């Protein structure tokens, strides 16, 4: 299991979002506002986002944790924690 710092996790999130919603401009995302208010993604897109994170980071994200991925900041926190726990 590779270890990731917050900066790397943030880049991985942007890559996953960019593959789903290519028009997303990372610099314009407000880190504390819900992502789905800022990006036009539906539940299908969101599931693909989770699948991409799963493929890149090797962690399984249960549905009950989806709420932790609402904003960019909370997603970075959650994924950093989960990756560290898998060490």
């Amino acid at each position, binding site marked *: 299991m590779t270890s990731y710092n917050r900066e790397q996790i943030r880049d991985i999130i*942007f*890559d996953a979002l*960019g*593959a*789903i*919603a*290519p*028009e997303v401009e990372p610099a314009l995302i407000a880190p504390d506002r819900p992502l789905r208010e800022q990006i*036009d993604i*539906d*539940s*299908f897109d969101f*599931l693909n986002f*989770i*699948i991409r994170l*799963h493929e890149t980071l090797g962690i*399984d*994200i*249960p*549905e*009950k944790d989806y709420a932790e991925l609402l904003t960019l900041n909370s997603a970075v926190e959650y994924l950093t924690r989960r990756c560290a726990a898998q060490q």
Partner: protein
Amino acid sequence: MYEFRMPSLGADMEAGTLVEWLIKPGDEVQRGQVVAVVETQKGAVDVEIWETGTVDKLVVEAGRKVPVGELLALLRTVGEPAAAAPETLGTRGAPQVATAPAIVAAALPRAEAAAVSARQRVAPAARKLAEELGVDIASVQAAEPGAVISRADVERAAQAKTLTPAVAKAAAPDWHAQMRMAIAAAMSRSKREIPHYYLASDIDVTAVSSWLETENLKRSVTERLLPVVPFMKAVALALREVPELNGFWIDGAWRPSAAVHLGMAIAMRGGGLVAPAIHDADRKSLDQLMADLRDLITRVRSGRLRSSEMSDPTVTFTNLGEQGVEGVFGVIYPPQVAIVGLGKITERPWVEGGAVVVRKVVTATLAADHRASDGHRGGLFLAALDRLLQEPERLR
């Protein structure tokens, strides 16, 4: 001799441009095989043939705009001998729409752009390069349909741009305008011709929601079901109980459909929508429905739809709950006779056994054609939907 004709890929389609033949004379073709690419107002579509045989002759050449019903090719069915005197390409079929060569030339790149502009997937490095080279990323095509656009694709587009700047630039906005025209035509016809009636019913979906939660807990992330999937199955099964809502109203007559082909309203990135069919939704497992839905949405957004998906939905299902909408009263897509709508699942106060409890509730709606059914039957459909959703384990 089987005559392969330009199919109608929706009520709003009068003609389509034959972009590419995927067969040539002498080829063996199978029933259901994709044989041509046709550009419609709603993008490029893979057109299937519904006969098995040998291609005798291609009547229309690629690049031509052809009205619906026009002969495109001739097929020798099994055991049939070859035609004695093959005719020259393009000599048959007088009413082909005359198209100026300039328009034909522009139609080709537009069709390809249409297929990808719905939802492109772009590598960040490719996006950066496109900005540096001044290439419009919307006009760049991936090496393979549906693939992520790479730096190499951008470089190739930059080279093409220096050769044909006008065509590449005109592509995307024109496609959006065409999409709006197609929607305008179908929806205006619907409101002009169809006497809609509208029903709504609040349904307690606590059981199906918790069933799905438990089910998804057992599944890896790649096998999870989207919340809409059990609803698709329940809608399809309820339609079997009230068949007056499933089929077509054509030339003043009701034509029921034995099969339930559920047209899924899918929004396209940047505006517009399509409602292609999931075939035989009432007979598929939830896993199969999820796989089909995944395949369909992926192709709506980054690939191409097939002609049968465009032409044969027997009813439409629209799910606007994700935008926070509580109820949606749809406009029927002619010649269908019903559209079922689902709003957002919310926790609401609910009276049960004389007490107020908190339940997960959704507003299900039906807009139906009063020529084909009455409100009473429509009400039975919503009641059946409610009943089916109370026993989620039986939806599998």
